[in-house]
């Protein structure tokens, strides 16, 4: 086994930013807005680095797809302990249309090229909430998948994954190579320490194009319109259950 883990990291609008829809309703405002690494991707990086520290794997490679700024996100992963990065350059219209299908094609191609033993991704991105990339990547590679992982342990050439599912926790054992997606409780991502931030400067980030990997980035989806959610109206407080019932009747809800 190569002992190499690929970790996908996505650059998204920071979770604390108040999202504004563009006036032409084609998307959200991203210019001049603070971006950071998707929180679930942070958890994925942390898990990979932990596996390396426990000597289960040998190398952590951080991958991000997007324009030049995606390299900032890769650098954050490097500062957390990833060994090197791959920046897949996707810009302009291709970047706007890029979704889970395109990213999974990229991840699958890179996994083959890098002879990866594991791919660890965040379970979903906080901008589109798709929760598809991990699953699609596994399907394209015909690899087993352990999604919504809250616990991961490598056992020889198998992985034991405890998954968070609606009914509770499910434990599965799958063969490697495999795709895992990180859920919230998998770990607590470490702070990038200043010494590691400075060391990350020397780590390499390779740049590739989807064309180099022989991939077609055309999207099968077209965004028709983006709207803000309806304004939440102020509620009304009532004193008794009778008041509540009569108010609901007045509104026509009952």
């Amino acid at each position, binding site marked *: 086994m190569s002992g190499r883990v690929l970790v996908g990291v996505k650059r998204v609008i920071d979770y604390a930013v*108040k999202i504004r829809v563009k006036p032409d309703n084609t998307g959200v405002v991203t210019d001049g807005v603070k971006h950071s690494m998707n929180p679930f991707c942070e958890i994925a990086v942390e898990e990979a680095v932990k596996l390396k520290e426990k000597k289960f794997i040998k190398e952590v490679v951080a991958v991000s797809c997007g324009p030049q700024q995606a390299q900032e996100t890769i650098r954050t992963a490097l500062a957390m302990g990833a060994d090197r990065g791959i920046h897949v350059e996707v810009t302009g219209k291709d970047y706007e249309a890029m979704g889970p299908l395109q990213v999974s094609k990229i991840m699958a191609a890179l996994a083959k090229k890098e002879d990866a033993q594991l791919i660890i991704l965040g379970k979903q991105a906080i901008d589109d909430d798709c929760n598809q990339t991990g699953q699609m990547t596994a399907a394209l590679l015909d690899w087993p998948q352990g999604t919504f992982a809250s616990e991961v342990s490598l056992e020889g050439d198998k992985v034991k994954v405890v998954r968070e599912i609606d009914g509770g926790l499910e434990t599965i054992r799958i063969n490697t190579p495999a795709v895992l997606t990180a859920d919230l409780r998998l770990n*607590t991502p470490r702070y990038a320490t200043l010494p*590691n*931030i400075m060391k990350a400067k020397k780590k390499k980030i390779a740049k590739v194009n989807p064309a180099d990997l022989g991939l077609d980035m055309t999207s099968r989806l077209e965004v028709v319109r983006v709207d803000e959610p309806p304004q939440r109206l102020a509620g009304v407080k009532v004193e008794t259950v009778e008041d509540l019932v009569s108010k609901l009747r007045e509104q026509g809800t009952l």
Partner: protein
Amino acid sequence: MALPGGALRLNQLVISRNFYKFTSCVGVRSLSDNVSSKPAPPSAPETVGDHLIYTQEHFALKESLRKIIDQEINPHVDQWEAEGTFPAHKVFKILGSAGFLGVNKPVEYGGLGLDFSYSVAVSEELGNIRCGGVPMAIGVQTDMATPALARFGSAELKEEFLLPSIMGDKVACLGVSEVGAGSDVSSILTKAVRKGDEYVINGGKMWTTNGTQADWICLLANTSDGPAHRNKSLICLPMNLPGVHIARKIEKLGMWSSDTAEVFFDDVRVPCKNVIGQEGMGFTYQMLQFQEERLWAAANVVTMMDNIIQETIQYTRQRKIFKQPVLYHQSVHFRLAELQTEVELLRSLLHRSTALYIKGNDVTKLASMAKLKAGRLAREVGDSCLQYWGGMGFTSDVLVSRFYRDSRLLSIGGGADEVMLGIICKYMDTLPKK
């Protein structure tokens, strides 16, 4: 004053924030309710390549430090302000482990050996802490009690005091000001009399930030009878030595989360080897770091002012008066524009001075100007913004009232406005000739 109404308005402000679901999952990332009223981050930094002093590493540093502040510090600030102290050992250990306490300190002692622009970046980011007390305490540790030691201390002294201070294992404090001597440092009375291999120290220090919990104090004392600028030495003094009395914790107008002590020294004996560098050079050593201290203070408050202005915009946008948002009244948005303009000017002065300083220039005049402006502008911003919060601004529930109290110190401590003006006049050659 319709306080319940005000509380409802604050509540609506909280609800209207678009928050990703997972953040409410208490567990991994415990964010306090305070975070919901955090202002939208001001516009993203200019392209890294264009910034006057900051590189990608500076921005990465700020991002990482911001996470620590959001997760380990801000959730507890209200409690610490109420208690009148904060757990310095705990907080410094977290910062020290992440490398943020030794940014421009020597690598051999756990520091990073980076230039002062990184210290400025740290100071700016610490301005995101929701009080003035904790950043001030950190600043004392990193840029007031330790620079002289790092530059001039013996290897043994650095091993005992500098290394653990950088790692966050020991809390430092600075002993310069006294009850009878603040701006006039040369008139301090604390004496260290040589007796064989030791100094015997008598006297007292005032306004000692971190004083009630410090492990050691960087003490300026008279060690001989020579001229006032040449008879003082800096001594590393452990705070647990017999004769060191922490007389009282001082109750202050602001900076509540920072414990400030009055300390007495009663025949305290310390080995002579604890003197930093050369005897008699203490005053000079302390003065050498003034440029850094002053730029640090300006950097810290620049971010705080940005945040206060942003929060005021947010509040006045949703608070209605005479059927429209307070913000829509021209006097309000025009005034905020004036204030933001001045903040940007101060930021420019800060960055320009830092750029010159890291190239080896003396920036005493510019640094003094930055400190002077920082103190005065903070008072203006605090006062003007508080007005726009109306009754709410007068309560303890909001950051602006805390900022109003905390920032008043800036014109007094770390070099009073009048001292800054004197320095600037010296450079302008406008002082009366003797």
